[in-house]
């Protein structure tokens, strides 16, 4: 019976989701990296101007 089972029964809907995470993830990574560097730069700049008192 297995040999005559319809091919439709073997589709894994999850395969498309992995591809989707790759595409969405690619763009998300750009945003993520930019945010990360933005905050790093911001911290560095504010660190320059806000030296702890008494030092």
């Amino acid at each position, binding site marked *: 019976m297995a040999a005559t089972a319809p091919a439709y029964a073997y589709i894994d809907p999850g395969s*498309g989701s992995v591809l989707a995470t790759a595409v969405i*993830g690619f763009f998300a990574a750009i945003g993520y990296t930019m945010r990360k560097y933005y905050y790093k730069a911001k911290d560095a700049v504010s660190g320059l101007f806000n030296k702890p008192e008494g030092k």
Partner: protein
Amino acid sequence: MTASAVRERLLASLEISPDAGSFRDRSNRVFRAGDRILRGVSKPAYENWKSASEAPFFKALAGERKLIATTDASGEEAARAGALGEWPFALAHQTVPFISYPYEWSFSMLKDAALLHLEILEKAIPAGWILKDSSAYNVQFIGAAPVFIDIPSFEPYRAGEPWGGYRQFCMMFLYPLMLKAYLGVDFGPILRAYIDGVDPLVADRLLSRSARWKKGVFSHVTLHAKMQSRASASELDEAKRLTEDAGDAPEKKNKIRHSEAMVLGLIQGLRGTIAKMTSPDERTVWGDYDADHSYSDASLQKKKVFIEKHARSGAYRKVWDIGCNTGVFSRLCAPFADQVISIDGDAKAIDRLYQREKRDGAGKILPMIVDLGNVSPNQGWRGAERKSLEKRGRPDLVLCLALIHHIVIAANIPMSEFINWLDDLGGDLIIEFVTAEDAMAQMLLRNKVDQYQDYTIAEFERLVSARYEIADSEELKGGHRKIYFLRRR
């Protein structure tokens, strides 16, 4: 006595039974031992827990009660005697007072559960851990606080691997939230039918037209569904090719490398999308929703005094307020009980109660959306994976206020049937009878063929007397309503 007889006796004394809803993850299984929750775990799962629970991110989340309190129970008698079957190790979890399911949650509850899930991932991944799945059933509510319960879901994060729970997260959290936020459709009945969540293709049909420009729809719905259709088409061709004569082998697993920035970016993006979502119910003016009853202040006060008098006896640890509306009387009973389950079919009222409990509740009230004419059934694998409302606990005291006319007249359930159901729930009962002469009952009767001749105080008292003793009663609203305290016989 033989070893097996000793084991049988121990099993009986500990009342240990495997949880019927815990079988999908092959690395562990939940057992109920009376009121306690034990989890039999494999060696790798145990080692994962040992090392994850030492990590600062895990300790911080556990400290904030965002992860269920868990201890090592491998040395306990039950585990040593093999009462947990073949599992070599055991964990003990704090018991969730009452299990609720995503199809019983309001919009804000599902939203908070989703945000908790993403917060855990966002903290776990940089520390080298990830959650292996994204089932919404892995979050439970203790009062109005969401807590993550599936501790063995933590596994080491391997750089380059995709976030394996993305699809499930979309199906169980994101799409249902979008349906409510973007289309105003309550997701409860949908999640009750699709217990594994809404498929991307279904979400695409529902959302891609009317909510096309809403945040997250293009990427997580339209694109996701397109990719799924394309992948399915190519897999269909592949399956057709794999005949015995062709002697072909299936293609290897897709090996796209997913950097940590891709995974975290995706998770942060989802968090941003979900955090901005609001329910259309929240956007309407709440105004006097709490005062949405037909009582004068004096009558309402009389009703409150009656309820408080009987609820405060101290005998009632578990109270169910069925037809609770925004939970005014649940809150009245909460100080005297350990737990109040507040049930109503009105999603808006339950969301309102949840928001309020989140703000200033004492963690005793669990709000749930349940249609009382069609309460959550046993369902899932073998009809046991998700339990009916009644199978998850029993009340000591039931509040049933201004509800009976909705059940008998609006939902057309005979009064005797309803009283039988209340009796089956167990516990004593504070019930308010709304006569057919009451203005609110008159509204329900307006467009109905009047087939409710037996809907009278006399018939009500006759029916309840068979099962309860009428310990106290008082007329309200000039005799149009009557409230009873019924003690189980």
